[in-house]
């Protein structure tokens, strides 16, 4: 399993696609730095500028989380199926390596890459926001951890799909589910605002089915200044605005996320075990 994890990590680092995605993320961070700088110079009083900077940071991180999701999906979706199609997997699985060892080795290698990439690039984005606008979110580490967890969830989903579908199909499906989960989160918030129980239930169910939006909400909460959260509570619109998070996600949600990742990774193992070469 360790050998497969090492091979996977080396392969991903040598891929041109990884380099391209990394350059795209870095370009985005540089662009957001310029946007923060422009924002600070547009508003006079420092307090007002910081408030706008905090709102801009949430928006920037929303786009950033989307880019991480794309990265995690495309890397994981091409981890297994090309090896099954080309015959690389046959030569590996003829060795004393179990199917679960192969899948979990892939998962470990990808997880190391995706977690490091999410945390490092996320930290860089937060540093850029601090340097250019002077804004520090209330809990940057928790926000980065939630973003990294979101990328891990999508990576696990992409890996599972990659055991049965071609790379491109698995990547598209994975990204589509990510956006559907986000839209369902928006729908759920609208349900709260409009007192529509059907929308609320649909939002809650999709939140559990693909927990990426819940993890984004968690990251969002740790990025917002406490004053924004306090205003939401004062106005009594908790959960009704899809673009702000009024409360942290409960511990049970994180436990569910861990179970979800374990379950989907287990499904990937099961899927490969049932496969005949």
């Amino acid at each position, binding site marked *: 399993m360790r050998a497969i994890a090492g091979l996977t990590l080396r392969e991903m680092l040598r891929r041109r696609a990884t380099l391209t995605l990394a350059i795209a993320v870095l370009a985005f961070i540089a662009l957001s730095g310029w946007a923060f700088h422009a924002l600070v110079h547009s508003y006079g009083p420092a307090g007002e500028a910081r408030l706008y900077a905090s709102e801009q940071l949430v928006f920037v991180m929303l786009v950033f989380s989307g880019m991480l999701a794309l990265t995690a999906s495309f890397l994981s979706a091409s981890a297994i199926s090309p090896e099954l199609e*080309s015959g690389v997997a046959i030569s590996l699985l003829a060795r004393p390596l179990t199917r679960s060892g192969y899948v979990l080795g892939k998962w470990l290698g990808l997880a190391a890459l995706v977690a490091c990439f999410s945390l490092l690039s996320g930290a860089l984005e937060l540093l850029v926001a601090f340097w250019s606008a002077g804004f520090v979110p209330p809990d940057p580490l928790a926000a980065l951890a939630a973003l990294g967890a979101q990328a891990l969830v999508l990576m696990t989903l992409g890996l599972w799909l990659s055991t049965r579908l071609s790379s491109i199909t698995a990547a598209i499906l994975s990204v589509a589910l990510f956006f559907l989960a986000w839209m369902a989160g928006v729908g759920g918030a609208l349900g709260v605002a409009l007192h529509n129980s059907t929308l609320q239930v649909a939002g809650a169910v999709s939140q559990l089915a693909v927990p990426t939006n819940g993890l984004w909400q968690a990251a969002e909460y740790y990025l917002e200044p406490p004053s924004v959260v306090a205003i939401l509570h004062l106005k009594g619109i908790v959960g009704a605005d899809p673009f702000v998070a009024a409360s942290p996600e409960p511990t049970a949600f994180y436990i569910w996320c861990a179970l979800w990742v374990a379950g989907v990774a287990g499904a990937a193992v099961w899927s490969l075990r049932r496969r005949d070469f």
Partner: protein
Amino acid sequence: MPGTIGAARRAEPAILTEQLSKEYGGKAALSDLTMTVPRGQVFGFLGPNGAGKTTAVKLLLGLARPTAGEGLVLGEPLGDVAVRRRVGYLPELFRYQDWLTAEEVLLAHGALAARPSAARRGEAQAVLEVVGLAGRARDRVGTFSKGMQQRLGLAVALLGAPELVVLDEPTSALDPTGRHDVREIIHDLKSRGVTVFLNSHLLGEVEQVCDHVAILRAGRVVAQGSLDVLLSSTGVRIEADGVTSGTLQGLERFGEIFLRGTELQVDGIRRQDIPALVAELVARGAQVYAVESRRPSLEEHFLGLMGGR
């Protein structure tokens, strides 16, 4: 009692299958494969395309699960993971990571085969030497020709001193020199007591290196045994003077007789009956100049079994 266990191990066949069958989507790819591959032998597994040869190999290596039947590989049940440490395999259709160098491929396989880390680099160099790729160890697999990739596949199969080497069409991409090299490698493996399971449809090649063969047709074994028995004499050609139709009377018991001038052909005669036939001809006044036992080629035997295909 390590000596007893060692002896028992040597005595048990390298591969044993009992009514092994595999269906894909309700269609039989392999039916009731029952065969024994003795240890230390070169075993040819023959059959036309689509006969089920590769399916059988995949069942033996746990890459596919049998629909019915069972088997043992080096004394362990099919699908056993640990036994694969003792097995080398060259798949028919394979590729190695084209972004790795030849040496890196072998190091990765050494790690997967749980070879001691200190020995991996030396073993990689040694097998690259054997397959003639020592000078290309640091080149990326993506730059290799098909033949070189097949040589690398062979190197991977030889890695870690396996007790059983399974070669699935090992020379399909090789030039005549490459094929000669593979034959030499197989002879060398045999001399070291390694069992070789050679899956091929190149009959001339199989005839040159194999001791035992099994012939598969439409998923079933239609013949198996040692090459000597399978290709045992089925005819004799005798050059003799003084042979008339009267001389031949009563000799039909030896086989079907054809006389063309001074050449006498007897088909279907058993090898052990040839001296008696010659003695009888001489006793009846014939002057015998030459006796040639006719052994059919593997190709003739194979085509006969395939119904002239």
